[in-house]
């Protein structure tokens, strides 16, 4: 039963000439924390609104537990939304906001009271129950919006950038709470965000969306470490791209002729043939920057390039370096341990060595 819980079947939505959602097929499992991640305007909200019943697809169907819900009005779907601006009813108290769906369902009074008091307990807002939304802080409003959408146990909870309006500290706090709430209620969460950090830390699976299409659907680690496309590699995290052509193959590894750069050795996991053009993506945290070259026995099999430091940004957790080698700017991250005791202090314009293991490069399609 957990298979094929929520299915988008070749769904397309156009606004005039613009195709906001382009032939999307997607299956979400029951109880899953699923994220839609993509840049602004890529069609995330539109996908969510079709699921909520606020937009009708131009073609394609949507199924929930095997039932076609494409044409059902919003009030006949057991799918609730946490809106980005919360959309709490300003004329009702927190308690009445949360009780709204239960009262609509004509539940007995005692049951309503028990459910509302219970969920208020869960979001730790029992003492705010009789306030009006305008008297709450941003984080409190957020929690009320979540409680209101969860209280009658919907089949799916949709969250449209629920944390976008909160400050960093609160956002991190709410992330943990959201995760706890998901574990507690066991309802399927469909989470929309353009913040990869949020998506990464919460999701079981992530769909990366670009221009109305799904570029990759995978677990967070797979999406980060093995991006399916150039777009995914550049959208998720920072990366260095090297454009080139495969010049020779040696077992699992290959050599890439990079335009205006020395050859780079890389793991040929896509089984590309000699002569094919590729982009090699290397994450900054995989690249080491040192004053001395790596030990020779290692040096034989890894990529080492002498470079010159152009810029250094100290960021607390790590330091970020930009170094040029053959006129290509490479960014690298160096985490700190025993920072003040580190024997090497690299400064601007130092001659350094930039190096990484061939396994740490990942090939995506050429530009």
């Amino acid at each position, binding site marked *: 039963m957990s298979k094929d819980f929520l299915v988008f079947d070749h769904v397309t939505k156009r606004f005039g000439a613009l195709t906001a959602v382009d032939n999307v097929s997607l299956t979400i499992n029951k109880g899953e924390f699923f994220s839609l991640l993509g840049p602004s305007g890529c069609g995330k909200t539109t996908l969510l609104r079709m699921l*909520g*019943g*606020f937009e009708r697809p131009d073609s394609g169907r949507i199924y929930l537990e095997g039932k076609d819900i494409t044409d059902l*009005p*919003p*009030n006949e779907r057991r*799918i*609730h*939304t946490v*809106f980005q*601006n919360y*959309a*709490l*009813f*300003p*004329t009702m*108290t927190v*308690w009445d906001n949360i009780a*709204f*769906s239960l009262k*609509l*369902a004509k539940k007995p009074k005692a049951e309503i009271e028990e459910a509302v*008091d219970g969920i*208020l*307990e869960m979001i730790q807002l*029992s*003492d*705010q*129950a*009789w*306030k009006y939304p305008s008297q709450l802080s941003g984080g409190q409003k957020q929690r009320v919006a979540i409680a*209101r*959408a969860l209280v*009658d146990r919907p089949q799916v909870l949709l969250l449209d950038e629920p944390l976008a309006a909160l400050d960093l500290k609160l956002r991190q706090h709410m992330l943990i709470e959201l995760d706890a709430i998901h574990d507690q209620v066991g309802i399927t969460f469909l989470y929309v965000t353009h913040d990869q950090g949020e998506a990464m830390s919460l999701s079981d699976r992530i769909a990366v969306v670009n221009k109305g299409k799904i570029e990759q659907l995978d677990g967070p680690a797979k999406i980060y470490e093995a991006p399916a496309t150039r777009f995914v590699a550049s959208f998720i995290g920072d990366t260095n791209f090297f454009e080139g052509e495969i010049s020779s193959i040696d077992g699992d590894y290959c050599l890439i002729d990079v335009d205006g750069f020395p050859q780079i050795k890389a793991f040929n996991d896509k089984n590309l043939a000699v002569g094919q053009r590729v982009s090699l993506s290397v994450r900054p945290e995989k690249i080491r920057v040192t004053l001395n070259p790596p030990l020779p026995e290692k040096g034989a099999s890894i990529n080492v390039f002498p470079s010159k430091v152009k810029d250094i940004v100290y960021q607390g957790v790590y330091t970020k370096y930009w170094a040029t080698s053959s006129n290509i700017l490479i960014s690298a991250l160096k985490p700190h341990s025993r920072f003040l005791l580190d024997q090497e202090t690299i400064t601007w314009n130092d001659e350094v060595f930039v190096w990484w293991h061939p396994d740490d490069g990942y090939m995506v399609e050429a530009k």
Partner: protein
Amino acid sequence: MKENPLRSKRAEAAVTLPSFVWLALFFAVPAFIVLAFTFHGHTANGGVGEWSLSTWRELVDPDYPAIVWNTLRISFEVTLWCIILALPCAYAIARMNKRWRAIVAGSIMLPFWTSFVVRVFAWKTMLHPDGWLQTCYFSWLKVSDWLFDWLPGFMQRFLVWAGFASNAPLDAASSTILDSEAAVVLVSVYSFLPFAIMPIYTAAEKFDFSLLEAARDLGAKGFYAFRKIFVPGIRQGIVSAVLMVFIPAIGSYVIPQMLGGTNCVLIGNKIFMRAMQNRNIPHASALATLMAVSVLVPLGMAMYWKKRQNARTSRRLERETARMIVGRGGEA
């Protein structure tokens, strides 16, 4: 960087002073003059006479209570119809895109480019006994007569007593819409509707329509969301609309004069008659005062009641909060 409260107070006073002076000079002072006139007699040549209570004594005319009641009742009916019609209109306009909004809002104001008297006069033609509105009116009378017969006896008696219905048998010759109360209500609704739409529309424009989506999302049907979320959300606009319609409706005299005939004489007509025909300014002033009092007293009572209720609600909320905190403390 705190603002100096004294300075902002002074600035506020400076800004409000002109309108305050204006209102005092041309509104409050005349109102008191009108009140003062009621304690004077009148002279034969239309002037204001000696200080006396004779005017108030003359006011115990057996016709007046009925006229005051009819005025209030008709104003109430007009206000009710205006609000019922204005709510969906304002909702629809607020949901239109910018261009259509401007066009429709403009067309609502369009009638104001013609003289009010001319427009009311035009209705006289439309309401002619040979016209189609007469036909509609008579069918409506027949339907409501039929519905009336279905009501239980005590309700029939109440409606007749309050003036909302009549016991007389239906007769085509005497049931003309022209010179009837129905004409007055119809044309008053027509004239005052823009004054109801505009404040409601202004409130609706600021209304966050995503709240309706949220209500639908949580399981509400469209009309339920309209009633429970939209209407309370624009309450302020509805209150202004009620005031904008009810107050002029009470003072209205052109419409009953031209379309109400002898069947629908309202307090405005009486005041006009006393002031212009009988040249008895103190008597007209007394009628105006009477009308103002009969509106202000219930209004004041309603405001007092509302205030008490608000205080009671906030006390209840405090109690509930205390209850929940204690409840949690008990478990811990």
